[in-house]
């Protein structure tokens, strides 16, 4: 939306240059003096933080929607955080160890931590939270499924006992994924309706102040935070702006300091990135492992033929998809595991070559010759609205070139979930299934035959069934040895690729937009879903 361009009158430009020149010289001469000052974080200031949509809850103990994961960690912390290599860093836990058989996780907890209501934080809170996660959290039910007991030999030690190894467990302890909540607030209540969800009490650097529905959440500095001196900010104003263009305008006018997502339309990003007061960062989304995939409905006899599926693979030009639909913000991702999950993704897998001749030949061989009208057969295509309509249009046009007539239907989110996972009347669907922090919770659900569950969102709606894949998935889920587990996942990716079980397309980049005065907003794989204890605003 560039309808009014700033008219720069030549006179004004010259004057600006004349004024700017001495300033430029001054900054050129001063770097030595200036560097230490800017490296020292400054106390104070208000951060105006954009959360794209209003969350339904402010604590991710029983629900994990994107907006909630942005707000929750500021108030409610986790046991650890993760750096850019997915390496755990101390948070509420200062030290941890895993037994060689992978069945015992011991956490030493940070002493002297208090909840925002003044009560002390102890191992009992950790034990209670882990059990809540196991029983109520959408992903935690899987992650902590094998937890039999959490022992608390002393107030600062928590030992998680498992019945089977859960090698992804140590990656699941980020505040956004597995928050530690106060036992005394939740005990004896239904965690789904507990008032803490809308007025949270945590141990985090920020204390919940108010939530005006439809408008904002206000968080105040916690003066008693365990990391003394932090947080640097006085206050965080969390604003919800539903309209993409309105978000662009708010960034442009300087009414927002920080937001992620990307928070604005990808077509608008380049214009905003060019503004002198704004910076952007694509790091800090690895924990989410975003992916865009094309899934088949294996109950359709046409798609049971591997040649047809491979032909569809050869008909899609992934680089073009990335540049046209995603404006280049992302990576081509041909493997079943997102390239953001660097510990598991197999970089040797390359996209099916873009080759229309080959695609046509495969379809001819499969027994679907072109009819008089130039088409071979028709398929129904759905698209998760999160991907945007353009992605569906792209696939439709690409497949038309090889004679597959695509009936593309685009719905709102709720209708899509219902149609794709309950009534399942699709042949192809463009899904946007995040791989999360580990392929067991993130990828297994799509290809595991035992997860074909009608009516369950993000399950194996393809109805893909393969005993070899099942074996690999089940082995990888309980393999405590890192190298062996990685090998299992490598085999799995190769198998899915060779079988054309799905076509994996793009790993879209998240993009954080920030005012250049805001520092330390992205310090690990959780990005702006971190606690913000380290964030400061340069004066």
């Amino acid at each position: 939306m560039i309808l009014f361009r700033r008219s720069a009158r030549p006179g004004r430009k010259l004057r600006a240059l004349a004024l700017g020149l001495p300033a430029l010289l001054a900054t050129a001469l001063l770097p030595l003096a200036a560097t230490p000052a800017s490296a020292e974080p400054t106390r104070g200031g208000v951060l105006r933080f954009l959360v794209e949509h209003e969350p339904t809850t402010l604590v991710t103990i029983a629900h994990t929607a994107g907006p909630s994961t942005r707000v929750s960690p500021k108030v409610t912390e986790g046991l650890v955080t993760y750096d850019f290599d997915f390496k755990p860093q101390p948070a509420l836990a200062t030290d941890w160890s895993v037994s060689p058989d992978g069945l015992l996780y011991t956490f030493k907890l940070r002493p002297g931590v208090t909840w925002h209501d003044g009560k002390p934080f102890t191992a009992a809170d950790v034990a209670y939270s882990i059990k809540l996660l196991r029983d109520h959290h959408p992903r935690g039910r899987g992650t902590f499924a094998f937890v039999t007991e959490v022992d608390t030999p002393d107030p600062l030690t928590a030992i998680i006992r498992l019945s089977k190894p859960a090698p992804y467990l140590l990656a699941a302890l980020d505040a956004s994924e597995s928050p530690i909540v106060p036992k005394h607030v939740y005990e004896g209540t239904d965690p789904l309706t507990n008032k803490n969800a809308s007025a949270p009490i945590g141990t985090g650097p920020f204390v919940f102040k108010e939530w005006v529905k439809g408008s904002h959440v206000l968080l105040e500095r916690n003066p008693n935070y365990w990391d003394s001196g932090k947080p640097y900010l006085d206050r965080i104003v969390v604003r919800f702006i539903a309209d993409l263009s309105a978000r662009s305008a708010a960034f442009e006018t300087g009414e927002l300091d920080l937001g992620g997502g990307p928070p604005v339309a990808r077509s608008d990003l380049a214009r905003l990135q060019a503004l002198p007061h704004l910076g952007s960062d694509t790091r800090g989304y690895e924990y989410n492992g975003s992916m865009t995939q094309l899934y088949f409905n294996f109950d359709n006899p046409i798609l049971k033929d591997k040649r047809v599926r491979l032909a569809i693979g050869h008909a899609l030009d992934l680089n073009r998809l990335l540049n046209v639909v995603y404006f280049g913000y992302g990576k081509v991702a041909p493997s079943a595991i997102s390239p953001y999950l660097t510990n598991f993704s197999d970089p040797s897998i390359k996209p099916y070559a873009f080759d229309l001749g080959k695609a046509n030949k495969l379809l001819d061989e499969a027994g679907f010759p072109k009819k008089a009208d130039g088409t071979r057969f028709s398929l129904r295509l759905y698209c998760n609205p999160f991907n945007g309509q353009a992605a569906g249009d792209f696939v439709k046009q690409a497949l038309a070139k090889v004679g597959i007539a695509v009936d593309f239907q685009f719905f709102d989110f709720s209708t899509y979930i219902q149609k794709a996972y309950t009534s399942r009347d699709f042949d192809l669907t463009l899904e946007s299934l995040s791989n999360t922090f580990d392929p067991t919770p993130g990828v297994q659900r799509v290809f595991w035959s035992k997860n074909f569950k009608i009516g369950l969102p993000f399950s194996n709606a393809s109805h893909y069934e393969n005993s070899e894949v099942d074996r690999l998935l089940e082995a990888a889920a309980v393999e405590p040895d890192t190298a062996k587990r990685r090998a299992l996942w490598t085999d799995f990716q190769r198998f899915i690729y060779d079988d054309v079980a799905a076509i994996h397309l793009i790993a879209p980049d998240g993009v954080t937009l920030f005012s250049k005065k805001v520092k330390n907003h992205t310090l690990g794989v959780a990005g702006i879903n971190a606690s913000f204890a380290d964030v400061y605003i340069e004066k």
Partner: protein
Amino acid sequence: MSAPLILSKSAPLIAAMSARLIPSPRVLKALRRSLLQAIPTVLIIVILNFFLLRLAPGNAADVLAGEAGAATAETMAALRARFGLDLPLMEQLFAYLGNLAQFSLGQSPRYNMPVAELIGQRLPNTLILMLLALGGALAVGIAAGAVMAAFAGRWTDRALSVLALLFYSIPGFWIGLMLIVLFSVKLGWLPSGGAETIGAVHSGWDAALDRARHLVLPTVSLALFYVAIYARLTRGAMLEVKAQDYIRTARAKGLSPAAVTIRHTLRNALLPVTTMAGVHLGGLMGGAVVVETVYSWPGLGRLAYEAVMGRDFNVLLGILLLSSLIVVAVNALIDLLQATLDPRIEVR
């Protein structure tokens, strides 16, 4: 003739109108009748809405699980049970009607709070926006219409007609965005969204001024479409009335042109405008959805939109019930107002 003149001279008219609005037995009877008619009407609306909403594919549990990006069969079952979606449809309806009978709008499963509270938080924001927009649109529209009628066929009329046509045809969201681009991004005069400067500690005059600054752009965006309608309506009605015999009589009596225009022409021409304004008050809610989204205005329209997207039917039913009540009430009010403007109209 200029707009301020009309406004100052219309003061006695308004005084006369309010004097007549003091309830007489006739009016009270009419109000009682409206109230009695309203109860079955609203009940039918509630039941129809209830079934209509169930036609939408997907439910609140699907959406919540979808948003979470993960789910297990157990979480889905727990969500359905919590929202009462596992009950038979008729049982759900009777449960809802039972709630209503106790003046409760039920609970929002999505936000985990009572619907009445959720609506109550948003209602003032939307009401102030709607009333300001409608009031502003009426004032400006009628003034512009009167000017157009007075200069019918001349360039003032033509220019205003073109402007009205533009306002009528440009979609509200686009006007909203363009106003933001001009007044917030380029000129930096007004904030681009929100209802107040959050986190700023304002009090007294500063707080009121801050709110007013946030109100300007949304109100204008919402009002422009209606300004166009009222201007055209007033113009047409005034031209029609001007040709009536009693206007000639009034002139012949030697009344000043201003008195003729305001007391005789405008007053009679207001009838169709008030009818439309009454209808629009209900329709404004639709416009409010768009404007509230563009300006991140924490109002009822946005809540309704989010309730649709989240399949939060209890909230949606509550909003629909409230809007139908408002429409019924406004219709009754408009009937009374019309009877005041034109004593020949019977209050039924």
